[in-house]
């Protein structure tokens, strides 16, 4: 299998992306305005007794959510100094993030990490970004104006009852600010050792009274990663991206959002290329590009009832000369309706249809049969959050039902119970079933790999490949013993069946199959401590064990070791955020990542540092240093043994 690992890394399969924008809906407070004149007549004392929401729904406080949720705020992202979305998740407990080379990341939640990690649902403003080719994410092309992100919500564990297949081990929701909240001009730019040069511009304005817009453009050029002997690995890359967002609050009942992005980039990328008589590592000029357009309509029937309709179109293009080419078009329509019955039931249901069509370029090394494919998914979900005891006990029950072209009908139910013994404690338990549906890589791929002197190994997709299934059991506890101190802990036990492996069919063929059962267990702790008004600490610890068990009849000889060895057992991070006099900010972070047995990657400790100065309001100068403790280190197994170097860059941001 090791011969294919590299190739599967940039190749793909297909799956059904089902997304829902539940949390975005939740984030929008719905309360209708009562006549302000009525409040004007009230005294201060009377105002203090006025209920903010009159039995209408409110966005759910994250401290009451019955799942393992972590939120990265705009400030968290800004002050961590990260330049990519993938790197931001290094500061989320329970997530595994490894950078393989200059432009490749492996990101997963609760295990099974790889460049094609396939058990995570990822959305940017309601648009699913994992590719149906292999149901993983090409992290190199997932970018946005980081300054305009409002927050990133990360749910570890299953979210499939609402979010659909592939939300097996987690859901990531990147939410950008409304155009209304990003008015004015923002200029940012900088340069450094790894971030060679980068810049961005955003302008937000107003078309009319309630119609706000913003447009943005950005560019970066990133340096090579390093080989173990410190030579540059020759994998530099550059990307440009632009986009817009319009938010229109038409009236009290109707809100519209239109947004879109377009991007284009090229990267020097190494791939192993086989012919019937040779194999070579080729440095190809890979091009990537794409664009998307989305519109969303939110309608309030009443304080208790809200409808949301979202439609998007997404195009992606990737061409690795002589290895792999893919053009993909995806259309998605999503309807959801949240309705509150009485004071006890918060009911939400939704319908979704997704169609995705691809066309791939076949080569001797990597081919797909058929070379073009269209796949459709239709789904429905419903969920009720039921208050058993007011302010004390809440039960959430729901399920997603979907039909896809690969595995037919799938049901993904969940049951969650949250108890609030008092204002500062939450205890929750959950049991869920989810599936990872087959994708194009599972059923349609053919990879040839020449092994000197004269053998060609072949890996084949398997049309009989079925869904991977998992039962998840979770227990969580949140506590805020002091106003300044809070902890959030979660424990989980996952039972997987029919996990993907490659069965060996002598003498030279490997066939993708549901070869393994597996279990994972572990826990995560997140802590926040506001030590002083000017000094805050944030920390996280994650523990994870993964055990694979070969199913009877399987002849897989390699996946067990490589899968079990691809996630760090222990991870720790601690961040310090200081607001110093003279408009200075000093932020530091320490991270420990345990060793990976796969590829023999040693454990490492990384230190990041950021010093920023805001001499006048809106103008910020910052120096950021990342991976300070070593000159370079590997983070994941790669064919060329790439290592990630220390990075220092300077950045200026100006808002006006």
């Amino acid at each position, binding site marked *: 299998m090791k011969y294919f690992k590299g190739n599967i890394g940039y190749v793909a399969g297909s799956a059904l992306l089902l997304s829902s924008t539940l949390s975005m809906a939740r984030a929008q*407070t719905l*309360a*209708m*305005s*009562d*006549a*302000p*004149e009525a*409040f*004007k007549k009230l005294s*201060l004392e009377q*105002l*203090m*007794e*006025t*209920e*903010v*929401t*009159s039995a209408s729904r409110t966005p759910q406080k994250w401290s009451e959510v019955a799942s393992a949720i972590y939120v990265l705020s*705009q*400030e968290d992202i*800004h002050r961590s100094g990260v330049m990519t979305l993938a790197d931001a998740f290094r500061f989320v407990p329970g997530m595994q993030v490894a950078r393989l080379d200059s432009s490749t990341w492996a990101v997963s939640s609760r295990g099974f990490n790889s460049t094609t990690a396939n058990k995570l649902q990822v959305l940017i403003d309601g648009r699913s970004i994992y590719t149906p080719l292999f149901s993983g994410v090409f992290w190199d092309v997932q970018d946005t104006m980081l300054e305009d992100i409002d927050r990133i919500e990360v749910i570890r564990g299953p979210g499939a009852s609402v979010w659909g297949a592939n939300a097996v081990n987690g859901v990531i929701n990147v939410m950008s600010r409304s155009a209304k*909240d990003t*008015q*004015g001009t923002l200029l940012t730019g900088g340069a450094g050792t790894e971030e060679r040069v980068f810049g961005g511009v955003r302008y937000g304005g107003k*078309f*009319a*009274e*309630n*119609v706000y*817009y913003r*447009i943005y*453009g950005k560019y970066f050029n990133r340096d090579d990663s390093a080989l173990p002997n410190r030579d540059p690995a020759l994998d530099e890359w550059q990307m*440009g*991206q*632009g986009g*817009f967002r*319009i938010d229109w*609050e*038409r*009236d*009290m*009942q109707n*809100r519209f959002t239109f947004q879109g992005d*377009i991007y*284009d980039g090229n990267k020097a990328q190494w791939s192993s290329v086989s012919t019937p008589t040779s194999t070579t590592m080729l440095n190809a000029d890979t091009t990537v*590009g794409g*664009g998307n357009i989305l519109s969303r309509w939110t309608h309030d029937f009443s304080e208790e009832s809200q409808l949301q309709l979202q439609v998007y179109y997404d195009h992606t293009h990737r061409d690795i000369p002589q290895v792999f080419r893919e053009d993909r078009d995806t259309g998605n329509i999503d309807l959801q309706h949240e309705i509150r019955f009485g004071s006890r039931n918060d009911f939400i249901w939704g319908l979704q249809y997704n169609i995705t069509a691809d066309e791939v370029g076949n080569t001797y090394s990597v081919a797909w049969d058929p070379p073009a494919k269209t796949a459709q998914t239709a789904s429905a979900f419903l969920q009720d959050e039921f208050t058993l005891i007011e302010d004390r006990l809440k039960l959430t029950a729901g399920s997603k039902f979907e039909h896809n072209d690969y595995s037919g009908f799938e049901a993904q139910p969940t049951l969650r119970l949250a108890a609030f013994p008092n204002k500062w404690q939450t205890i929750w338990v959950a049991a869920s079933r989810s599936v990872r549906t087959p994708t194009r890589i599972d059923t349609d791929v053919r990879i040839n790999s020449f092994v000197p002197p004269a053998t060609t190994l072949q890996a084949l997709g398997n049309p009989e490949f079925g869904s991977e299934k998992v039962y998840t059991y979770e227990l969580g506890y949140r506590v805020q013993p002091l106003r*300044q101190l809070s902890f959030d802990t979660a424990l989980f036990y996952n039972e997987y069946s029919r996990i993907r492996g490659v069965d060996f069919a002598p003498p030279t063929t490997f066939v993708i199959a549901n070869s393994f059962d597996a279990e994972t267990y572990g826990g995560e702790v997140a802590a926040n401590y*506001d*030590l*002083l*008004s*000017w000094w805050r600490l944030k920390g996280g610890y994650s523990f994870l064990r993964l055990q694979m068990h070969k199913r009877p009849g399987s002849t897989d000889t390699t996946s067990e070791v490589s899968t079990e060895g691809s996630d760090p057992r222990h991870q720790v991070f601690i961040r310090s955020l200081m*607001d110093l006099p003279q408009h200075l900010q000093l932020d530091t972070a320490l991270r420990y990542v345990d060793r990976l047995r796969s590829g023999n990657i040693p454990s490492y400790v990384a230190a990041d540092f950021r010093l920023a100065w*805001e001499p006048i*309001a*809106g103008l910020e100068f910052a120096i950021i240093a990342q991976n300070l403790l070593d000159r370079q280190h590997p983070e994941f197994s790669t064919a060329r043994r790439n290592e990630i170097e220390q990075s220092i860059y300077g950045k200026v941001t100006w*808002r*006006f």
Partner: protein
Amino acid sequence: MALLRKLLPLLCAILIAPPGHAQAPTPASREYAIKAAFLFNFAQFVEWPTNVFAEADSPFVIGVLGANPFGKSLEEIVRGESIRGHPVQVRYLRADEPIADCTALFISQSENARLEAILQSLERKPVLTVSDVERFARRGGMIRFVNQQNKIRFTINPEAAKNAGLSLSSKLLRLGEIVRTGDP
């Protein structure tokens, strides 16, 4: 770059074709309608230095800095009102507009990241600062709204008010929770 070529028509399309139907009222939440009433009410319980108003009929300016969360509710509340003989005016201010001319200033959550700089620029200026930004009063602001059990309460930093030359009535101090700059 091919990007620019693709981007241009898109940008043109946005800039040339602004959607119509612009005059519908902005939806504002009940929460902010209540906060707007609070804001107007606070002014009755604060004494400004006499030299704040150039003329007897100079306006009492309530500024809203950053993204406006009130919709039209603040304007509706102060419409036709005057505070101690000064007609009340609402101004919506962007980050780059001068704020020291305001009599009272509401700082929107959108300005959270710049808050320290904003407060610094108002140092010793007789402007009543109000906000619902996290830890606002402990960061040197004067009055912060806090949502508590579905009701709105407020914390007050009397020291910050005093430094700015404002005096707060004892009633206000009794109703709010008192904090000081730098309190945990």
